[in-house]
């Protein structure tokens, strides 16, 4: 396969998980897109250095982690909460769980559709509209803690549901 095509094929395979990795460290939803694009460009420029004996995803996450640390070093306000040692622990955890638990789009969509209306509305506010929990609490007249708990419960339900769907072969 042509090296360029090979790179593109590898990149497309890990794109979703790379976004998840960056998003797990950079909690600002806009900045994580910036970082992702920067990392994608860095991967493309360094594609000759990729060691084919290693998983592409691990290589990509390594470069992403370095980019995030660089951004943090350049700007102390850059929103990364974790210390370098913790970032390394997260890198290791992603490497160990290599895409095994990555939610498949179809399965997740089906699980979202099965949510009760109230849970669905909550998850829409949080993820579709990007509203912060504090604002959700204010709008709905619930306490902030109740919103946190509800979001946690909905995510747990979705996680279990996706796991069941994938186990049943429902992602096809």
């Amino acid at each position, binding site marked *: 396969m042509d090296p360029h095509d090979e790179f593109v094929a590898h990149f497309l395979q890990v794109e979703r998980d790379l976004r998840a990795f960056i*998003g797990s460290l950079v*909690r*600002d939803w806009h*900045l994580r897109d910036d970082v992702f694009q920067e990392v994608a460009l860095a991967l493309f420029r360094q594609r000759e250095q990729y060691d084919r004996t290693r998983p592409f995803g691990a290589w990509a996450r390594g470069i992403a982690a370095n980019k995030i640390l660089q951004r943090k070093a350049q700007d102390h306000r850059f929103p990364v909460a974790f210390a370098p040692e913790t970032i390394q622990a997260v890198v290791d955890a992603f490497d160990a769980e290599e895409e095994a638990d990555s939610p498949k789009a179809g399965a997740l*969509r089906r699980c979202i559709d099965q949510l009760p209306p109230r849970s669905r509305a909550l998850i829409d506010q949080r993820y*579709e509209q990007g509203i912060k929990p504090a604002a959700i609490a204010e709008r709905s007249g619930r306490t902030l803690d109740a919103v946190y708990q509800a979001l946690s419960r909905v995510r747990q339900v979705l996680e279990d549901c996706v796991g069941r769907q994938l186990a049943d072969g429902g992602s096809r």
Partner: protein
Amino acid sequence: MNLSDRGRWLIDRYLDDGLAPAEIAELEQLLQDDPETAATFVCAARLDAALCEDLATDRDAAALEALFRREEELSGKLPVITSLPPPLRTDETPILWTAWSRWVPTAVIVAAAVLIAVALFVPRGEESPPTAKVLSGTITVDGKAVQEVPVERALTVAGRESATLQFVDGSRMTVQPESQAILHRPEGEIRQRVELQKGQAKFAVEKAAGSFRVETAEMRLIVGGTEFTVRVVPAIVAGERRTIQRTEISVASGRVYIQTDGEPVALNGGQRRVFPGEEPDRPRPKVRDEEEHRNKVIDPRRGEREPPKREPPKREEPRLEEPRREVPRKEGGDAPRREGPARPVDGKRVLDNPARPAQREKR
């Protein structure tokens, strides 16, 4: 509360931007020391990212609407042949034509010979450049299995397994057995045009310059970057002993625009629609304000939004639907911007980077 419960609690709060600095330090310690917490963190982060990706498709709405408008403008620029020039009347036949007419058969024979010679000596690859590679399964063209699919030739899936193709732009098409399609040449701003003649194909379209089109006899579908399935199926007409062909579209994520004989239709992730006929389903009922319940019509020529006219629904001419919630736009046409959860650092909320442009090109 045991250690893993505490870990889960910290992870959830972290994802919702709700941890105090001391709790972040506690989570960091757990992530470094406890592999179980770290694995749970990875799982939760993947779900969090997937929810962001799958639900926040409105982010792409503005770009796709612009793409759609451009398509319409492009169509409008094409010359339209309204009538053929009137044929020459016999009494107006030029005299010179009569003199040259006896040489015409010879000229035709010479031209045909030249064309045959050119056809024989020009490599077939140049005549039909490949637009897609076969990643899995068996694709046949003219009865022969191929690894690279040429344009303008009918492809079929051999065997009982589906086949996956990858286009030059990275987009993928998974074709079911007994399906038939033609990959057409790119034209202008259309980077890929696929004609599904029979069967079913699932598309994962990458975002790139230009548009990706899928056509069936019933509709033309235009997308930027999304995942959807197109199925061409025969359907029995109720009360009649005949079948017609229908096209069923199911959108997994993103948004697609569909042109039919009627008004253009926009479908979002999770929606399904059949052309012609069948009312749109609404698998994702949402709690919304009454005003937000109104469907919105995109006039592709003017790019305006206006409420639909209150007319009885026609089964064969489905109305455009726009069921997703639209976040009010800023003045100047900025794309809807979401309040991303800025996370706390040293107990303070961090604002967006002021240097970042308000509207960026996405991916």
